[in-house]
C-alpha cells in the first residue's frame, strides 16, 4: 500500500524530471495559456447536417485509469465496473444532467399525475416497452425485473446495490409488461429502485441459477459475470478483467439508427496524468474518465494539447472538513471517541468558527483544483439549490484571519509562549487526517499554515486511500473511527434529492464502538434541530417542502460548523475534439448516453 503511494510520488517526480530534461533540451514551449474548459458537444453549424447512423463509425476508444474487473454491475467493486457495464446493462430509466428521468426500457415515467405512482405513495407501477429485446434476441419482460430484485436481495449474492431495494415489500407483475413495486411504508423517494447506475436489469435466463453463493462460485455464473447479456447498445466481444473490454453493436438494440460505432474499446489502467495526455494531447483515446490531475498540468495540457478538450459536469461532490465532536485521545482506552467524551475544544463553537474563518477556499480551489474545483460555502452548491459561484460562494465565507483571532481572543483562548492558544490547560492542537493524494496533502499544507497563523497547532497525517475508506472493524485509521480531530474527504448525494444523504448525520447515527464505527455520522455531531428536520423530511411528500428542508439542513451544518465545505468538485473528463453527442450526467453513469455518441472527421 505504502509502496504504491511511494511509487506514485516517484512516478510524478519522474514526469517532472523528464519534462525538465526534455523541455530544456528541445527549447521549452513557454507560458501556458489559461484553459477555457469547453462545454460538451456544441456542434458547429457545418456539422449540424451530419446524421449518425448505426455502424457509421469504426472504433470508439474509452480510457479509464482504473480498469474494469467485472461486468455484472451488482457485483462491482468500483465506478469503473458500473461504467463499463453501462454499454450493456441498462436500468428502466436513466437520469440526465438536470436530474430528470429519461425512460429507457419503459413507455413513460410513472408520476402521481399519470397514476403510475399511487396517491398514498404505497406503490409505483412501471409499464415496460414491448419492443425491447436482449442481445440474444429474446424478449425483455417483467420477469427479468423481478428476477434482478430477487437476485440482489439474497445476502449471499453479495450484491452492492441492495440499498436501492430497501423498503420494497413485494413486486407484482400483473402481466408480462407491468412491474408494480409495493413499498413497506409510503415512500416519497419512489424512483429509487431500477433507475440510474445502481438499478440495472439482469437477464433472468442467464442468471437464474446464480442466486446466492453460486453468483461467485458456479462456473456458468462466473462466465456470465464477465459477459452479461444486456439490452444496451453494445455487447461484449472480449473482456480481459483488469485490462480491456471490447464491444460490438447489439443488433437487437431498440433504436435502429444507433449506436454509431462498430466497435468500442474500453481500456483501463495506468494513471490519471497520462490518461489526460492521451486524450488532450496525443489523441490516443477518444474519452478519458476522471482526470484528477494537478490544476497547473491539466490547464496546460488542455490549452496546448490540440487533440481533445475537457468536459466538466456537475455532481454533488464537495471536498469538506469534518469536525470530531468527541475526544479521540488514545489515553481514554475504550472510551475513546465515545459520545460520553466530548471533545476538549472542538465542542466550542468559537473555535470551530475561527478554524473556518482562517481558510481561504478560493486560494485552494484556484491554486490546486483549477478547472476541477470551485470554492463553496455550502454542501448544496449545484442547481437547483444554488446556481453560479455568486450564490454558493460570493462573499459568504471569505478568509478573515484577523476576525478569527479576535473570536478566539474573545472566547478566552490565549496565546502561549510557543504561539499556541490555550485555555484552562487545554491547548489548541489538532490532528488533521486525510487520504494519501498529492492534492489533499497540498490542501493540508495550506490549511496548516493558516491555522498556525491563528494560534492553532496542526499536525498532519495521511492514510492510504484503501485503508482510509476501508470499512473493516479492526482498522483504526478509517473515516468511521475518525481517531483524529479533523478529517477531510469528498462525498455528496448520489441523487438529486439530497435528503437521505444529509440525514446520515443525525444524532442517532453517530459512529461508536457499539456499532463497530460503522454508522455514518462519524463526526458524532449532535443537533436536535437537525434531527427534527430530518424526521419531517422523511415523512413529507411535498417536493417544495423537501427543497426547503434540504436548504435548512445544509444551513445548519454550515452555521454550526459541523463540516466546513471547501471545494465543490465537478467531474472532469476529457473528450476528443471529434467526439459529439455526449451529455454527461452527474446523477447517472458517465456512460449513460453512450448510444448517442458519434464522431465527425
Amino acid at each position, binding site marked *: *500500500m505504502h509502496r*504504491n503511494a511511494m*511509487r506514485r510520488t516517484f*512516478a510524478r517526480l*519522474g514526469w517532472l*524530471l*523528464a*519534462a525538465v*530534461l*526534455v523541455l530544456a533540451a*528541445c527549447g521549452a514551449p513557454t507560458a501556458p495559456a489559461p484553459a477555457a474548459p469547453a462545454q460538451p458537444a456544441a456542434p458547429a453549424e457545418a456539422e449540424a447536417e451530419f446524421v449518425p447512423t448505426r455502424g457509421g463509425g469504426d472504433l470508439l476508444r474509452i*480510457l479509464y485509469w*482504473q*480498469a474494469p*474487473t467485472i461486468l*455484472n454491475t451488482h*457485483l462491482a*467493486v*468500483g*465506478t469503473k465496473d458500473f461504467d463499463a457495464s453501462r454499454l450493456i446493462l441498462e436500468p428502466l430509466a436513466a437520469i440526465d444532467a438536470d436530474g430528470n428521468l429519461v425512460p429507457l426500457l419503459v413507455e413513460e415515467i410513472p408520476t402521481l399525475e399519470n397514476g403510475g405512482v399511487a396517491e398514498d405513495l404505497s406503490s409505483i407501477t412501471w409499464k415496460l416497452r414491448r419492443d425491447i429485446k436482449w442481445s440474444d434476441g429474446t424478449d425483455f419482460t417483467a420477469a427479468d425485473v423481478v428476477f434482478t430484485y430477487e437476485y440482489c436481495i439474497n*445476502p449471499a449474492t*453479495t450484491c*452492492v*446495490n441492495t*440499498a*436501492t431495494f430497501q423498503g420494497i415489500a413485494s413486486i407484482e407483475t400483473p402481466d408480462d409488461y407491468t412491474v408494480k413495486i409495493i413499498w413497506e411504508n409510503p415512500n416519497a423517494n419512489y424512483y429509487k429502485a431500477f433507475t440510474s447506475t*445502481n438499478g440495472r436489469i439482469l437477464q433472468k435466463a442467464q442468471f437464474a441459477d446464480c442466486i446466492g453463493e453460486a453468483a*461467485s*462460485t458456479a462456473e456458468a*455464473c*462466473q462466465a456470465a*459475470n464477465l459477459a452479461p447479456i444486456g439490452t444496451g447498445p453494445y455487447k461484449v466481444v472480449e473482456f480481459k*478483467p*483488469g*485490462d*480491456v473490454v*471490447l464491444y460490438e453493436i447489439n443488433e437487437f438494440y431498440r433504436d435502429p439508427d444507433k449506436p454509431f460505432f462498430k466497435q468500442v*474499446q474500453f*481500456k*483501463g*489502467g495506468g*494513471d490519471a496524468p497520462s490518461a489526460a*495526455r*492521451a486524450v488532450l494531447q*496525443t489523441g490516443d*483515446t477518444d474519452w478519458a474518465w476522471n482526470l484528477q490531475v494537478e490544476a497547473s498540468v491539466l490547464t496546460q495540457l488542455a490549452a496546448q494539447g490540440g487533440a481533445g478538450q475537457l468536459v466538466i459536469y456537475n455532481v454533488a*461532490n464537495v471536498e469538506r472538513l469534518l469536525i470530531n465532536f468527541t475526544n479521540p485521545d488514545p489515553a481514554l482506552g475504550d472510551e475513546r471517541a465515545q459520545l460520553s467524551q466530548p471533545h476538549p475544544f472542538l465542542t466550542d463553537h468559537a473555535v470551530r468558527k475561527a478554524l473556518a474563518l482562517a481558510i481561504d477556499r478560493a486560494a485552494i480551489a484556484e491554486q490546486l483544483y483549477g478547472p476541477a474545483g470551485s470554492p463553496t460555502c455550502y454542501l448544496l452548491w449545484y442547481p437547483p439549490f444554488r446556481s453560479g459561484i455568486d450564490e454558493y460562494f460570493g462573499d459568504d465565507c471569505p478568509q478573515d484571519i484577523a476576525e478569527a483571532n479576535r473570536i478566539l481572543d474573545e472566547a478566552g483562548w490565549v496565546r502561549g509562549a510557543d504561539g499556541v492558544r490555550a485555555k484552562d490547560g487545554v491547548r489548541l492542537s489538532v490532528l488533521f487526517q486525510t487520504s494519501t493524494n498529492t492534492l489533499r496533502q497540498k490542501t493540508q499544507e495550506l490549511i496548516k499554515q493558516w491555522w498556525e497563523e491563528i494560534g492553532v497547532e496542526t499536525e498532519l497525517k495521511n492514510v492510504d486511500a*484503501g*485503508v*482510509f*475508506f*476501508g*470499512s*473493516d472493524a*479492526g*482498522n483504526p485509521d478509517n473515516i468511521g473511527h475518525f481517531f483524529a480531530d479533523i478529517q477531510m*474527504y469528498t*462525498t455528496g448525494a448520489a441523487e438529486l434529492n439530497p435528503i437521505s*444523504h444529509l440525514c446520515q448525520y443525525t444524532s442517532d447515527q453517530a459512529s461508536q464502538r457499539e456499532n463497530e464505527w460503522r454508522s*455514518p455520522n462519524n463526526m458524532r455531531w449532535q443537533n436536535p434541530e437537525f434531527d427534527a428536520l430530518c424526521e419531517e423530511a422523511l415523512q413529507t411528500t411535498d417536493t417544495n417542502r423537501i427543497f426547503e428542508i434540504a436548504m435548512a439542513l445544509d444551513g445548519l451544518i454550515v452555521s454550526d460548523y459541523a463540516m466546513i465545505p471547501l471545494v465543490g468538485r465537478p467531474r472532469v473528463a476529457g473528450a476528443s475534439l471529434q467526439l459529439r453527442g455526449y451529455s454527461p450526467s452527474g446523477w447517472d453513469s458517465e456512460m449513460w448516453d453512450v448510444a448517442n455518441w458519434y464522431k465527425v472527421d
Partner: protein
Amino acid sequence: MGLFILRRLIISVPTLLGISLVIYMVLALAPGDPLAQFAADPSVPVEVRENIRQALGLNDPWYIRYFKWLSALLRGDWGFSFASRVPVLDLIGQRLPQTLQVLGLAYLLSICLAIPIGVLSALRPYSLFDNIATTFAFIGFSLPTFFTGLVLILIFSVNLRWLPFIYDSTLTVNSWETFIRQIRQMIMPITVLALFQTGTLTRFVRASMLDNLPADYVRTARSKGLNERAVVLRHVLRNSLIPVVTLIALGVPTIFTGAIVTEQIFRINGIGELLIRSIQNSDTPVIMAITFIFAVLVVIANLLADVIYGLLDPRIRYS
C-alpha cells in the same frame, strides 16, 4: 545427486508453508477493504459493504481464513478473485502470455547483449569501447524503470508521435501489419526493461571475465599455443559464466511476477500489474496465488541454480 535433490525438495515444503503463512498474516493484519472504492459513494452504504464482507468471509479471524485457504489449496482450489469473481488461476493464465512475451523477450535480449558486451569490455579494459559500455551499464542500472519509461514516452510518443504508449492487448497478430503494430507497442517496454537488466548483467560478465583472465590455466592455454579466440571462448568465458548462469537462473522467477512499474506505465496487462492492483484493492486470493507461485518458483530456481553449478563446475559435488 538424486538424494541431494530429494532432500532439498523435502525441505522446501515447510519453507513454502512458512512463506504462505507469513504472507497471509501480513495481508490479514494490514487494514484494507475490497470495496473501499465505494466508501465515498452514498449509493453503496456501509451496511451493504459490511454484509458483503461477511458473505465473503472477510470478518473471520485470520487463522481461520488461512486454514480455509490452505485446505482449499490442497484440494487444488486457489479461490476466486473478489474483484472479478473468476478463479484466480484463470486471471493469472490470461495475463501470463503478455508477461512472458514482454519480460521474457527483454530478459533474453539482455542476456544476448550482456555476454558479448561484457566479454569485449573485459578483453580491453578501459578502452573506448569499455568506457562507453560501462557508462551505459551504469546509466542502465542506476536509472529506475519508471524514469526511463516516462522519458521514452515523452520523446517517442508525445513529442515524435512514433510509438503508442497504451498497450493494446486485444491485438491479434494475424498479418504483417498487425505484427508491425505488435512490435511497435513492445519496443518501449522491452527497451526499458532490457536497458536495466543488461546494465547489471554486463557488469557481472565483465567482472567475472577479469577475474579469470590472469588465472594460471589461461597462461597455460596460451603457452600451449592456442589462438586467442579459443582461449577466450573455450576457457575463460566458460569458467566466467559459472556465476553468471547462477544469476540468470535466479532471475528467471522474476519474469513470472512481471515488472510492476513498467507494466503500469505502459498499461500492459501483465502479472505485475495484476499483483499491484490486487494489493491496492485487498483482493487477497489473487495476491496469495501470485506470491505463492512466485515463492515456489524461487525455491525451484535456487535448486536449479545449485544443480547447474554442479554440472558446470566439476569441483563442486553434492553428497
